[in-house]
């Protein structure tokens, strides 16, 4: 499949916004859904639906098999060693909460230290804050360099013999900066410190290889990966998952339940309590198929071309201030416009069919650091092209005219 034909696979682009062509530059918030994913959900509900892992009737067997097929596809997609290392969750947020709870309960005590960075999304800070309060643990934030980039030397400075985990983003949802994960993970390995990677933004743009990356946990949101809403993945090394207690209790995750004692199922089932998002998991297989059909390298090259074109065009305008200039970046451009608040920019752009996000993007620590309460953010997905950037630039001109 050619990448410039990809847009035809996304029915949403038939929708007109205020009578104009939809220019969707909000994929870092959530991506649009290809027809194959939408159709797969419909087909599943019309022909194959049943709950999984419980009943023995034919539909239950089919549904269970389809669900587990996606687990195999995810394992292959991210190159994990074992299929049991793939846990389905409701999103990257739940994936991180799971680790903060289950890992925290077992391994983090009073006075222990958790290393995060100033770049983190609230979903990779708030769960650790709960743990900090519960366990009287401490959180240290890695300082960013002048390009708002995470630097391995700054991580090194914070590591002590009390450090129990390092949790950090793969790709910033504000600056688009790509974290030098290999170096940081190699450093952590020498001190036997596990690393959790928030891959919410990384997974849609970067090729994933868990065996090569060698992180201990990796969190994914499927809705940003052209998949259904309400679904996420936690990759965790089996050696950890086998040791951890379940995060939630309920049906399906048990081995034996007695009045005095309960034993749990094996990994990953013990982490998948209650009825799972069956149709969503099955349909997510179609997202993986699409990404693999286009090729992850092609996707990165395509998005990088648009990103670089966008940066080039925005840099021409002196009234535009780009937020963060990491050398190694992908997909995301955040900016402010002199004298115009980002919310006004977003409303005015919308009039031209351009969808961007305005606000602090759930990164208040970072926005406090740079001293602006809100920024405007354009983020690129597989279906964008240079014409989208042209329309964006034109609409920014309109903002300036209105506020002149």
């Amino acid at each position, binding site marked *: 499949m050619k990448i410039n034909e990809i847009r035809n696979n996304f029915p949403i682009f038939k929708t007109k916004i*205020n009578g104009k062509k939809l220019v969707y530059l909000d994929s870092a918030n959530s991506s649009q859904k290809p027809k194959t994913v939408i159709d797969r959900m419909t087909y599943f509900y019309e022909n194959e639906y049943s709950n999984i892992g419980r009943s023995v009737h034919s539909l239950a067997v089919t549904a269970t098999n389809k669900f587990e097929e996606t687990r195999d596809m995810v394992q292959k997609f991210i190159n994990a060693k074992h299929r049991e290392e793939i846990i389905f969750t409701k999103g990257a947020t739940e994936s991180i909460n799971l680790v903060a709870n289950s890992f925290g309960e077992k391994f983090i005590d009073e006075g222990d230290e958790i290393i995060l960075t100033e770049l983190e999304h609230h979903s990779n800070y708030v769960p650790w804050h709960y743990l900090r309060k519960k366990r009287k643990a401490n959180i240290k934030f890695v300082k960013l360099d002048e390009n708002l980039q995470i630097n391995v030397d700054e991580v090194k400075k914070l590591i002590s013999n009390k450090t129990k985990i390092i949790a950090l983003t793969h790709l910033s949802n504000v600056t688009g900066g790509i974290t030098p994960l290999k170096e940081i993970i190699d450093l952590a390995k020498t001190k036997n410190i596990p690393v959790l990677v928030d891959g919410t933004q990384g997974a849609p743009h970067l090729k994933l290889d868990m065996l090569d990356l060698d992180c201990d946990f990796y969190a994914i949101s499927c809705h940003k990966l052209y998949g259904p809403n309400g679904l996420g993945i936690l990759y965790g090394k089996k050696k950890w998952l086998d040791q951890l207690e379940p995060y939630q209790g309920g049906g399906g995750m048990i081995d034996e339940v007695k009045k005095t004692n309960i034993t749990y199922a094996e990994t990953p089932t013990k982490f998948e309590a209650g009825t799972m998002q069956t149709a969503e998991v099955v349909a997510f297989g179609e997202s993986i198929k699409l990404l693999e059909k286009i090729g992850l390298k092609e996707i990165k090259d395509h998005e990088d071309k648009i990103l670089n074109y966008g940066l080039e065009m925005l840099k021409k305008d002196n009234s535009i201030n780009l937020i963060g200039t990491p050398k190694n970046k992908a997909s995301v451009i955040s900016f402010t416009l002199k*004298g*115009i*608040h*980002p*919310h*006004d920019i977003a*409303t*005015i752009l919308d*009039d031209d069919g351009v969808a961007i996000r*305005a*606000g*602090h993007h759930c990164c*208040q620590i970072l*926005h406090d650091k740079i001293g602006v*309460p*809100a920024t405007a953010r354009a983020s690129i997905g597989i279906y964008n092209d240079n014409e989208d950037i042209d329309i964006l630039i034109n609409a920014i001109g309109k903002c300036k005219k*209105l*506020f002149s």
Partner: protein
Amino acid sequence: MELKELYKEIILDHGKNPRNFGKCTNYNVDAKGHNPLCGDKVHIYAKVDKEKKVIDLSFEGEGCAISLASASILTDVVKGKEYSLAERIISDFLMMIKKNDKMKTNSLDEDQVTTMMSLSGVKEFPMRVKCATMAWHTLSEALKGKNNE
């Protein structure tokens, strides 16, 4: 949804040059409002007297043109009014924004009514309604608190 319905001249003017910006002297009531979704903040300062009249009113804040204009208009309109009238004006304004109601004049002059009505376009932009109402809710809560003292 016409953009010019939202960004009327009068709003752009109040947004760029907010009236009563800063802390008014000898304020004895203040209250903060903020919208956690978008980060807009407003801090209202009022000087009220024993006769329950708002003698002076001002605000500080950061936010979009709509939220700054809205706070600016609020301070302009409510300054000098007694609590009971201030509360009627606020609830009138909130009804107008939420429900398409016309402003009842309530002893306001025509210019003030026109200025307040200029924010009515926000109805067509549901995600921006809170930008226009935050300062008004904040003052209303502050006055209720003072009234119960």
